[in-house]
């Protein structure tokens, strides 16, 4: 949404500089690309970070469960002896 509002407002900003049509279009394209790339990068880092944290916690929990199961199995083995 931020990107859309920025792109809509961008045209009036460009017009205030009284550029030629070609200049204006080039600036519009480049500024839109820069805005798009920044938003995608920020969102990617944010969701990537959150996903990475969840993945790490899941992996640690899995390892912990496996360790507990192994210890439990070992004790059972000792009792049987």
């Amino acid at each position: 949404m931020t990107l859309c509002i920025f792109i809509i407002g961008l045209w009036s900003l460009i017009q205030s500089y009284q550029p030629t049509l070609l200049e204006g279009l080039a600036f519009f394209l480049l500024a839109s690309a820069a805005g798009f790339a920044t938003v995608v990068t920020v969102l990617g880092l944010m969701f990537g970070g959150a996903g990475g944290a969840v993945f790490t916690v899941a992996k640690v929990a899995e390892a912990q469960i496996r360790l507990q199961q192994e210890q439990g199995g070992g004790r059972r083995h000792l009792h049987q002896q």
Partner: protein
Amino acid sequence: MNFGKHHPKTVSFYFLGLLVALLASGTALSSGQKSQYNSIMSSVDTTLEYEAAREYKEAQAIWYNSKGWFSCDSFCQRNKSRMDAKKTTYDAVRAEGNARVSDAKAVAGVFSEVGVGEARDSFWEYFNRGAKFAKRQSMWDALFTGFRSMGRDESWGEYALKVRGREGGREETAKHTKNVYRRHT
């Protein structure tokens, strides 16, 4: 990797944008451009614009206080015509100021450091506004998720007591933990 193969235009657009965002800072103004830009900008009378805005707001307040809910008598009509005249003056002053600023910007050019800087500032302003909006929405969402946990046959009073009880329970647990800790140390 597959996304890049299937959407080459989007990926190229992204990398072009990333390059522009990281490296572009605009062309520097020459000394002639700089002096021309500054002289036009200094000719913009901000005091006049401020005065016109203040007079318009005053006239608007006077008109607002004299009008009824759905009616406007002769006294109110007189105030309204005064307000309209002030608004016309204010719009004209503002348009004059904007035209001068636009002339100064035309001297600098859209690809200059002034143009690129303004576009960048505009982007970050919208971005920060969006981030604040998202934060506020998350807060409301958290609040209403709490409300939704209210039972079907539960009144507001009961729900408030339950929430209070939960908080009280937390306090009790904290006290208990503190006592246990004290006993052990």
